[in-house]
């Protein structure tokens, strides 16, 4: 069900600083909301996000309930060589999703 949106430039010049935008669909239930019956809605969030380029981790984030639903994260990296970005989201209740994107560096 979960789906990711990734925005990585398809091409870049060597040494360019490129922006990577990611969005993962997720409810990010905080664990602080109550149902009408008074019960607490259990927490269900993404706790960690990581991005690897050709197997090496280039960016990582720890997320807390204060991150809005459908976590949107953007960051920068330097284009050094052609290769593949791999993205991974891990969260409560065994949530684990991956996505990937390729870039050509010339």
């Amino acid at each position, binding site marked *: 069900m979960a789906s990711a949106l990734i925005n990585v430039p398809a091409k870049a010049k060597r040494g360019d*600083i*490129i922006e990577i935008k990611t969005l993962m669909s997720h409810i990010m239930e*905080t664990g*602080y*909301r*109550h*149902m*009408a019956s008074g019960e607490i*809605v259990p927490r269900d969030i993404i706790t960690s996000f990581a991005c690897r380029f050709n197997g090496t981790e*280039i*960016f*990582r*984030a*720890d*997320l*807390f*309930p*204060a*991150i*809005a*639903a459908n*976590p*949107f*994260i*953007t*960051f*920068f*990296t*330097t284009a*050094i060589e052609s290769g593949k970005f791999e993205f991974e989201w891990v969260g409560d209740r065994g949530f684990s999703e991956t996505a990937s994107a390729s870039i050509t560096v010339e």
Partner: protein
Amino acid sequence: MHRPPNSTRRRFLGLAGGAAVLGAVPVVTVRPAEATPAMLASAIRNVTGGAAVKTGKVKLDVPPLVENGNTVPLTVSVNHPMAPEDHVTSIHVFNEKNPQPNIANFYLGPHSGRAQVSTRIRLADSQKIVAIAKLSDGSFWSASVDVVVTLAACTEEVI
């Protein structure tokens, strides 16, 4: 009869009793529904390890007036070169009045090229947001912004 030993014992008991009463007070009070400035300070101390945090270098972009606290765009950038020997290693974002003081931690490296991250956050109340950047030389830099929130996040009931 020797008075001095007795009086020190009495004084000790008095102090111990006083400490017990003081210690009991936080147990009686209900845990607050929002993070307090003390929780914010302790969350920051967890990251810095008590090191001095200087103001500057960090730029925190959040709208000063937010209509909907459920999704607030936030950008943190650090005005610092990203050279292998001298770069920003992490960016930490905190708040004052959400149920938890932490918002997010971001870990960067010299390959990042630019120390800038963006995300969307939730704000339960009008409050102060603090961003702290850690540099590779071990120093910490911070910026804070006050945000006014009209519609708060986290408070609505699920039907």
